[in-house]
């Protein structure tokens, strides 16, 4: 507080840096360096995690063999079998299922907020959607375990643990991510395009379907990719409802496991090769999210070119 007030009367002179006193430009430098430090710490954090996970997990590809690790059909660490294919498949099933449920819901919400809703409606719905993003994942998990699971159990005849419950929970969890970004994409379309469509006599639905959504296409794909990143990395909520059985998909109501939930289940007791295998699984997750972030980068480059 005192720093800014002390430096303002001098710097607002308009004549530039020459009028700034020595004391205040030292302050400027200190502030710049603090920001630099913040950025460096963030970058270092990613680099350190990457190196740590890589160093701890890399040996598994040699010890177990790339084919047996990535292509192995059985995850049974106490018997020395480290096949992660069922877990990768589980992560993909849960993520794709969550997208099928969550993406239409989120895009629909975004279209409603940006194209249909009255100002009053918007002021109610938007904070509610944003609030969804603030709900801790363990609360989602608990909701899934106590409320959703018994319902699914009745529907599928099992115990209610499995991909269906996990997808429903994840589908709701990713709504704020996708809908906020989709709304931004719709909002960034020049107003004239929408008005032109209406002026041609198009209905609201025709405007949304034929004009707005195609125009915002890249932004929406962006939003969906980021939603996928959120879904594939989610751990706690999935762990609580997916059943954690390291087998391939057997049905919507049958237990299954994912990379993230299996890491958490095994971490407390894993030693030696088993622990290395868990880090190997973390490498796979890292590669997945790198691919997703890469996808977003490429898309934004495409967007710049077409814009």
């Amino acid at each position, binding site marked *: 507080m005192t720093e800014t007030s002390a430096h303002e009367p001098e710097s607002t002179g308009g004549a530039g840096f020459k009028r700034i006193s020595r004391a205040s430009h030292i302050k400027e430098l200190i502030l710049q*360096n603090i920001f630099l430090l913040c950025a460096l710490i963030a970058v270092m954090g990613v680099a350190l995690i990457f190196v740590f996970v890589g160093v701890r997990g890399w040996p598994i590809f040699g010890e177990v063999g790339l084919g047996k690790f990535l292509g192995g059909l059985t995850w049974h660490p106490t018997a020395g079998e480290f096949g992660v294919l069922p877990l990768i498949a589980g992560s993909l099933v849960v993520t794709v299922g969550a997208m099928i449920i969550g993406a239409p819901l989120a895009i629909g919400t975004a279209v409603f907020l940006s194209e249909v809703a009255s100002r009053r409606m918007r002021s109610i719905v938007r904070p509610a959607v944003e609030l969804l993003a603030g709900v801790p994942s363990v609360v989602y998990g608990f909701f899934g375990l106590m409320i959703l699971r018994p319902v699914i159990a009745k529907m599928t005849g099992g115990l209610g643990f499995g991909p269906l419950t996990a997808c429903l929970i994840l589908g709701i969890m990713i709504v704020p991510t996708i809908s906020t970004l989709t709304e931004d994409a719709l909002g960034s379309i020049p107003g004239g395009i929408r008005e032109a469509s209406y002026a041609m006599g198009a209905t609201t639905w025709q405007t949304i379907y034929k004009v707005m959504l195609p125009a915002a296409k890249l932004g929406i794909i962006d939003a969906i990719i980021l939603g996928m990143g959120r879904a594939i990395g989610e751990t706690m909520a999935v762990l609580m409802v997916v059943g954690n059985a390291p087998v391939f998909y057997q049905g919507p109501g049958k237990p299954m496991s994912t990379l993230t939930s299996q890491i958490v289940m095994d971490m407390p007791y894993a*030693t030696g090769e088993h622990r290395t295998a868990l880090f190997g699984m973390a490498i796979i997750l890292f590669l997945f999210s790198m691919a997703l972030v890469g996808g977003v980068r490429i898309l934004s480059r495409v967007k710049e070119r077409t814009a």
Partner: protein
Amino acid sequence: MPVSDVSRLKISFGHACTWRRMSGLLTAILVLASMSLSGCSQTSGGREQIVVNGSTTILPIAEIAAEDFTKANPDTKVLVSGVGSSAGIESVSSGSSDIGTSSRDLKPEEDSLGLIDTPIAYDAIAVIVNPANHVRKLTTQQVKDIFMGKITNWKQVGGSDLTIGLVNRDEASGTREAFSKVVLDSEDFDPSAVILPGTGQVRAVVGSEASAIGYISLGFVNSEVRAVSIDGVEPTVEAVTAGTYPITRVLHFFTAEQPTGLAKRYIDFVLSPSVQDTVVRDAGFIPISARSQSSVSGGSGD
């Protein structure tokens, strides 16, 4: 806006005053360091403390005993946490805890760790079903076949036509380890069973689903679930004491060396009648002395 001023500043002074940059960076680091130092002051405050870590089954005993112990000895602190038996054994052998609690015996590969075993109580593992389930008794063989996935419908064991919903524990669980050893002869569980990370969750799910079956420590059985009789013997404290109930185990405290100092005082307290006859019994376990006369299989001796 001052933004442009700042950027101009950077251009003009950036190269000339690198030492200033460095000192700025240093100040920032110092500020951050002093902040983090003042943030976490020492909490131990000169009190002697031990860390007790491991089985979630033993948690009720270890925790209540720790409370009573520190009440009687205010200058000490006993930190208890439940992370699973395997994690407890791992932590005491790596030195990150003073006592590792375990609801299973050491595995052959853990013998080389040279841990000192102090048995503290007996426990039975109850096979639990939903109260709405008509099946009241099972044989050890039937339980084995159910958990290995060979029996998949309740009508095969005299119940209604309903697919069995298997609820298993995670591999860090000592209860799972003991159950696997006694009932499954260490053969593999059905891998497609639901795996839940805690006794409480197993009980809650079995209590809410009519088709479910699970296993938990006898001390955790309550009215939410029904414990079935095994080979005609109901899981009761009397049956365990008499040695007739088949699925029993020993609860252990492991230490890296012969316990000394505070760890020894705490273990002696847990073994004293004031804990054994109250805390251990209240938690549904059987005091270690109760079966010393009758022949005990698997007891590591005293």
